[in-house]
């Protein structure tokens, strides 16, 4: 349908409201000529809007979803579009000394006789360091002053357990007993009680950093496949059935029943929010201006879907994804690392270009992190064991692009175990993001926030 060619001048929210109104007209189309073949549901009218660099597909599939999507748009439009933080996790403890290899450090070749890298662009702010060749995509954005590099981020007395150290990063404190994530606590503080999309884990399960105490958050593998159907149930009965999912939960004194009920109602809410993204006929429900890397890994597709969801005005604030690749490189490090980093960096570059083309770049920051770096000396299996400080990045047009903490060097910068000392604390970075990006009091989210030095991260 081409009815909205003249919409380009409308504001984002008016554009969407108009699209919704158009899509809803004439519903339902199910009555005449019954019965329908199994599983078809209501007829779908696809409505494609192009304007303001945004491509939105709205389906007139369900009056429920239609209303809920309207609510989401209305809520988002009532406020200025929220700023978004995207957390990208390199799982396993990425080897910082390969991400940014200290080729200019005389000890590097001695500690890494087999693994020492050569080549790769030099880092302008510290010529000792060279970008891993597979990180060329991020190096390119760095050249455009859109990447803040943290060459030795971590915390003192680093825990070398994957699980403990990751837990610290996820909860935003060196506290093994905290059960909510740092982004989850931010959403508990600043989010709302009726919008699961505010905290979105684009994964097979919820990221611990998004675990909240009170407000709903969501996890989904792919927004165009959040569908539910049943055997030999269709039409209005199917709609009534889906409607009932949200009624399965009720307050209960039993924690497990309470959880199962709360998740059912979040599922219901999320399903309605995502109806516009449903792919009913195998056609992609979103189209975008940018090409992403082709891969079996879901990461590039998820970033592409995220850009489309943001462009559609869905009320998303915090997003968590796991990067492709194997980073726990106890053995055979060179191959594993290069593959993972390449796809991660190329996908992030495409995402940034996508956001720029859609006019969204100024409200999205991407934070790349890993639970620790790896030991400076290699282990003899062409690998490295667990270490302490690692490398982090902050990517976006609003990132300062100024290095946070310095590379401490392999002579004086190693601790007693031969691991890199941290020159920036992750909790200080979190506190700075909360204050400078989200504009909230970090003390409400990060324990002892005032005790950490907050670097300038946002321009």
């Amino acid at each position, binding site marked *: 349908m081409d009815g909205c060619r003249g919409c380009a001048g409308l504001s984002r929210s008016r554009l969407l409201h108009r699209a919704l109104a158009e899509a809803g007209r004439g519903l339902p189309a199910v009555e005449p000529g019954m019965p329908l073949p199994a599983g078809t549901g209501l007829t779908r009218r696809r409505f494609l809007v192009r304007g303001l660099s945004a491509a939105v597909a709205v389906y007139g599939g369900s009056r429920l979803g239609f209303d809920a999507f309207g609510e989401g748009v209305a809520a988002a439009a009532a406020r200025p579009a929220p700023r978004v933080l995207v957390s990208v996790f390199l*799982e396993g403890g990425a080897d910082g000394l390969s991400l940014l290899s200290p080729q200019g450090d005389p000890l590097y070749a001695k500690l890494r006789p087999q693994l020492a890298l050569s080549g790769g662009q030099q880092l302008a702010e510290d010529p000792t360091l060279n970008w891993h060749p597979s990180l060329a995509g991020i190096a390119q954005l760095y050249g455009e002053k859109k990447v803040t590099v943290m060459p030795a981020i971590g915390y003192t007395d680093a825990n*070398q357990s994957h*699980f403990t150290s990751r837990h610290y990063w996820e909860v935003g404190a060196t506290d093994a007993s905290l059960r909510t994530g740092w982004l989850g606590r931010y959403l508990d503080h600043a989010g709302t009680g009726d919008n699961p999309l505010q905290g979105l884990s684009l994964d097979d399960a919820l990221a611990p950093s998004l675990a909240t105490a009170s407000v709903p958050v969501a996890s989904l593998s792919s927004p165009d496949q959040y569908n539910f159907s049943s055997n030999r149930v269709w039409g209005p009965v199917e709609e009534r*059935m889906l409607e009932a999912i949200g*009624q399965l939960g009720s307050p209960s004194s039993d924690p497990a029943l309470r959880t*199962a009920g709360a998740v059912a109602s979040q599922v219901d809410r999320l399903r309605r929010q995502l109806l516009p993204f449903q792919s009913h006929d195998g056609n992609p429900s979103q189209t975008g201006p940018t090409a992403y890397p082709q891969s079996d890994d879901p990461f590039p597709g998820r970033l592409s879907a995220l850009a489309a969801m943001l462009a559609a005005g869905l009320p998303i604030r915090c997003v968590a994804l796991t990067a492709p690749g194997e980073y726990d490189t106890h053995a055979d490090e060179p191959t594993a690392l290069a593959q993972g980093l390449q796809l991660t960096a190329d996908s992030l570059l495409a995402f940034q270009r996508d956001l720029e083309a859609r006019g969204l770049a100024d409200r999205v920051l991407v934070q790349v992190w890993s639970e620790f770096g790896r030991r400076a000396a290699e282990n003899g299996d062409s*690998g490295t064991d667990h270490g302490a400080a690692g490398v982090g990045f902050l990517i976006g047009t609003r990132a300062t692009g100024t290095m946070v903490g310095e590379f401490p060097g392999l002579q004086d910068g190693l601790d007693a175990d031969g691991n890199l000392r941290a020159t920036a604390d992750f909790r200080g970075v979190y506190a700075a993001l909360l204050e400078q990006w989200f504009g909230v009091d970090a003390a409400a989210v990060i324990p002892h926030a005032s005790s950490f030095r907050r670097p300038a991260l946002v321009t």
Partner: protein
Amino acid sequence: MSGVAVYQGRFGPAEAERLLWRAGFGPRRGEAEALAKLGLEEAVASLAHPGAERLVGPAPRDEKGRPLAPSDAWGQDHVWWLDRMVRTSRPLVERMALVWHDWFATSNIGVGSQRLMLHQNQLFRASGLGSFEHLLQDVTKDPAMLLWLNGSDNSKQSPNENYAREMMELFTLGAGRGYGERDVRQQARALTGFRNGWSRSLGPVRFRFDPAYHDPGTKTIFGRRGTYSWKDSCRLCVTHPDHPSFFVNKLWGYFVADPPDRATQRALEQLYVSTRYEVRPVVEAILRHPVLFEGSRMVKPPVVYNAGLLRTLGRPIDTTAWTWLDAMAGQQLFYPPNVAGWDDSRWLDTATWRGRWWIAQYVLQPFALDPAHAVVPFDARALVDRALAFWHRPALGSATQKALHTFARRALADAGGTSWKRQQYPAMAQNALRHLIAVSPELQTS
């Protein structure tokens, strides 16, 4: 006896059903009633001493009726084990195998051999209720584990800390409990010497201990010096004063939602130490504990949920779809997310709940009524009652019942006076009600 509290309340079918869910994969029709007749003591004993295994029901098949190839075909390892869960006469043995698969979580992502994964699985099935020290030794030299945590890369010439660290952190002591970084490095030395060869056709082969790669020197572990071997390494962990508390706490968490109180914790530790690190007595004591029956419910792990639905309906394994469906729900067997196993405090979120919805849909597929021909009453109450009977009348809370009745009333009201709708909507509603019950909070938990 052991000094651990024993449940003294009524042990009826409801309690027996909970026991069968916690210690197994839920009851088949009539099993809870039969178990209840034994009384608690006998019921637990029958689970913990089940005798030889009998597999009940038809052998597993793929969707084309062919037998499974668990060592070779992708995903059929998962379905093969799921079939054991569905058909076994020894549910606790299979449930313990699942516990150990999570405890010593090994992923085929890092092993690359279904054959070796199934070999490890057989170890958990055969030794899962015996001595924990022996189990730890068997796991330490298990080929899948040697590959997964670089045990056969660990040599005197180039030590690899991977297994040593996880052995203490995840398998025996708990993070940062009673060991330091120095102990990790020294344990790694004690564990050196395992090797394997490679065959172009078979992959990793010839797993063995080769003294030429073992570091025989003096190590200092937990403050004591000795020329420790890999068996010493296991023994030092199991006899470490911080091990019994770790063991009891972790094992308890698989069966009971609420943490043990101090007296229970201590009594179970004493039982464990006094039986020289035997698993079975501790499991039996946990299964008899009052909190198991009187305490909070637990979210069923996805494979337990799936196997349980199949057992309830008496449906054999006739498709391999369970592999990807259970993966959607967050649990593909032989592929735990990492060496710490599955995070069973977070089974349910908006993504994994959808996986359970699809599991229920596939479970219900052969039972779906044909709306064009089924004879179903045009009566909301009768529809709900019939759907409850289909699931053997599970106990549902008032909110769930209300949701079911509201749905049934609305679905029928939508039919209005149109005759084809009055024929078709009740059967569709019946299909939907069965599905809604299967995903209700009550059926997701036990």
